[in-house]
């Protein structure tokens, strides 16, 4: 009877596999961005090419899946926040360089041009930055912090993401060390992040939750997440620190093993077209509030774009990545 069971199991699984073949689509897209599925739908409607959108969860979870797949990646394109991680995947030959002519076809703004990686590991499609999220019910208007340094006044009530779990959070950390100097930056954070249960959160959503429930008065969060909450009517504001902000590009990468290069090129063309950009803004969640980097495209209403940027020294940031992440973990996580 075990024999019959085995056969029964095999038969039912076969039936299931026939019902759902693994990859019949023209493109397989791995992503962790709110607008990716609507954009894929619009792309499908326009070109007739089918896209399987695979979204395992947060950026970290998507990266974990890609890492587990190793040298046998199952996606054709990947679309994520964070430039450093794309560079690492390209260095491991999980990604192949995006063809140079794909960049030439796009009318990037100056900000956009500054985000194009030399390695061509990814093609930037938009950007965002880190800002201070302030709960206006908890913090009086006169006492709103203006800089990272001001956050010391809120010590113990500052929510922050763990850079070990969030690419953007690492870029923020590296940015602080760059603008303040490493030692002064460490001293500043040690005085500010005194509540470990708030300083090692795993996602922007958890920072939002901490600020909205009042567990924290202020949070260090991706600005598009804050604008999305403002649009939803939550009592928060975004403050850009006077020290300057580091840009957090989101990019499209192409799998080193893709068999669908033509479809991938068409997808990139669509995303950077006016139509694709409109689809990227057709929603109310965090990622729809990105900063456009293509000429003639405006941000969603209510989204601040007049931001003073500092340029992050990527090489310095990636050279110290392990060390600085470990320092953060030892001091502010667990």
């Amino acid at each position, binding site marked *: *009877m*075990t*024999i*019959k*069971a*085995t*056969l029964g199991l*095999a038969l*039912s*699984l*076969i039936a*299931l*596999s026939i*019902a759902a073949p*693994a*990859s019949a*689509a023209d493109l*397989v897209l791995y992503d962790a961005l*709110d607008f990716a*599925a609507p954009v894929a739908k619009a792309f499908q409607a326009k070109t007739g090419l089918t896209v399987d959108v*695979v979204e*395992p*969860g*947060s950026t*970290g*979870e998507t*990266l*974990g*899946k890609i*890492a*587990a*797949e190793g*040298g*046998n990646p*199952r996606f054709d394109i990947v679309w994520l926040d964070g430039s450093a*991680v794309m560079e*690492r*995947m390209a260095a*491991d030959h999980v990604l192949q360089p995006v063809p140079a002519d794909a960049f030439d076809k796009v009318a990037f703004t100056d900000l956009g041009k500054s985000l194009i990686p030399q390695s061509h590991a990814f093609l930037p499609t938009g950007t965002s930055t880190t800002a201070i999220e302030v*709960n206006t019910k908890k913090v009086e208007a006169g006492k709103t912090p203006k800089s990272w340094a001001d956050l010391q006044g809120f010590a113990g009530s500052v929510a922050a993401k763990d850079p*070990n*779990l969030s690419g953007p959070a690492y870029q923020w950390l590296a940015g602080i060390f760059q603008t303040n100097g490493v030692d002064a930056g460490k001293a500043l954070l040690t005085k500010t992040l005194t509540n470990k*249960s708030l300083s*090692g*959160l*795993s*996602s922007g*959503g958890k920072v*939002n*939750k901490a600020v*909205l*429930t*009042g*567990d924290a008065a202020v949070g260090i969060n991706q600005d598009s997440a804050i604008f999305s909450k403002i649009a939803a*009517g*939550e*009592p928060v504001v975004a403050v850009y620190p006077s020290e300057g902000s580091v840009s957090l590009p989101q990019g499209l990468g192409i799998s080193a093993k893709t068999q669908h290069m033509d479809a991938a090129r068409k997808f990139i063309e669509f995303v950077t077209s006016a139509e694709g950009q409109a689809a990227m803004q057709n929603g109310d969640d965090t*990622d729809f509030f990105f900063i456009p980097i293509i000429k003639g495209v405006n941000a969603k209403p209510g989204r601040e774009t007049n931001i003073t940027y500092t340029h992050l020294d990527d090489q310095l940031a990636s050279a110290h990545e392990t060390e600085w992440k470990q320092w953060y973990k030892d001091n502010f*996580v*667990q």
Partner: protein
Amino acid sequence: MVLNNRNAAAGGVGFGRLPRLTALFRYGGPAAVYAVFGLLIGLPLALVLLQAVMPGLFAVGRGDWFLSLAPLARVFASPAMAGSVLHSLVLGLLAAFTTTALGGAFAVLVQRCDIPLRRTVSLLPWLVFLTPSYLKALAWVLLMSSGGYLAQLGILPPSLGASFFGLAGLVFVHTLSLFPLAVFIIGSALAGLGSELEDAARLSGAGPLRIWLRVNGPLLAPAIVLSFIATFAEVLSDFGLASTIARMSNFGVLTYGIYAAASDYPVDFPAAGAQALVLLALVLLVVVADRLLRRRADPHLISGRAKPARLYDLGAWRWPALTVALIVALLALILPLGAIAARALTSTLGNGLVFSNFTLSNIGAALSPDTPANDGLLRSLFYAALTAVIASVMALLLSAQLGRSNPVMRTTVLGLSLGAVAIPGIVLGFGYILVWNRLPGFRDWPFPQYGAASLLVMGYVAAALPYCLVVILSAIGQLAPSLTDAARLHGIGALRRLVSVTLPLILLSVVTAFLLTFIRTVFELPISQMLIPQSGPPAPTLILKLFSHDRDGLACAIALAAMAAAGGTAALIWYPLNRALAFGRSRPPTTPARPGEPS
């Protein structure tokens, strides 16, 4: 070995009735069990655990086979990781104790006492079981945080809210969300206990307390210990609370450490493997300790002749007893569900429970056809039903094979199953990707394929099978051997014995296993995440994605709809069946096994 077994299976179907295959049956049983375990759980798990001692196995570029103890040394050298080992152990032991106590008391209350509303109250464990741990954890965060619903309503003193986020709160929420497990395990043993032994003790002049301490207690001991171990394993492998309340309380546990190591590019495989190894070692330790401390064989309780036990008349104490049960219901079900419903029905969290903040748009989005939310929901219900059929049938067949084999084998499988319960879904999911996308041979195998729904269902089955085995094996273990022996002496074949003797006696356990699997699978999170099919996400992935993308209102709405659908389906199966069984039992005493009767 796997392939051999498949060949054997293919050959066996054609010649199933040939006598010479009886031998294969006898020895094929244990072999099949090992093969199923090996393929479904052992191999994927081994690939993850091996990395604890072979850190280079799946390294980027070219893997190597060098042995090293460095990853394990790192776990115990790092204060954070060593601390999380201790945290997991303390939390697991405490919660297993409180859960078993609450569940055992609850089982006795609803099965043996004449409390008012007994039938309604006995539904509570099932309803609690419907809510997955990550939702309950989120609900308690919504309730207890300093700006949360209880504080907004002015019910919660701030000091209590603060102390909730720590060991005490974790034990509290674990106990309330896992006590159904203890009720199921201890309750099914209680049902099999019958009243003969108790009646005999009473006739010999023993009082109720003495009967429970000296007769029922020892007879129930295996179930109580099983419940303790199962809860301990559950707590250790839990990720829902680990990633919410524990994280917010700065209470690092092993599962979160594994998750953190596995959520980046590149993945810290050695750290994930080492922590998974420590986690499983802890569960194994408890199982082994149990075997060493309690060497007596488990009693066989179901004789096929047991009379249902009579209810205790509690007198005036009926009402306080009911009140206690209702308080449990309030804390375990009504409050968390209320918080989820409140969040599903409000547009923002910060503005709280004021009228202007209410909306129906989230519920509308979850229920309208052709939305991603609705598609995910239907997909999950289908996968869960398929998984439940496969897992419970497999568990029944494997248990039947094991029921007659030697006790060592049964203990081994029970231990393996409990160990498997403790495998965090994320570890199993990772192992599945490594086996089916990285291992030569499996990678190019046409079926099941990574990225297809088939592998997701296989992963679900692997996660559910240990549970089904524990439930069904413990029911079969209680069957007195005389029943099937009688049938065998009449020359009844193994298959007929299973279908017409064993199955009717344990049908309720099989259905229990089916429904448990169905409900758990609808909400199974980590495996859904790792093995998400390219054809579209199942509901849990969708719910989690919405949470992490900050749309918890819609996530709560989908979760509510999923609970209603899963609960409704379960009720549709359970009630007619329960009624039919009750009807069957109310007939004049018949021996369930009547060999002459056609099956």
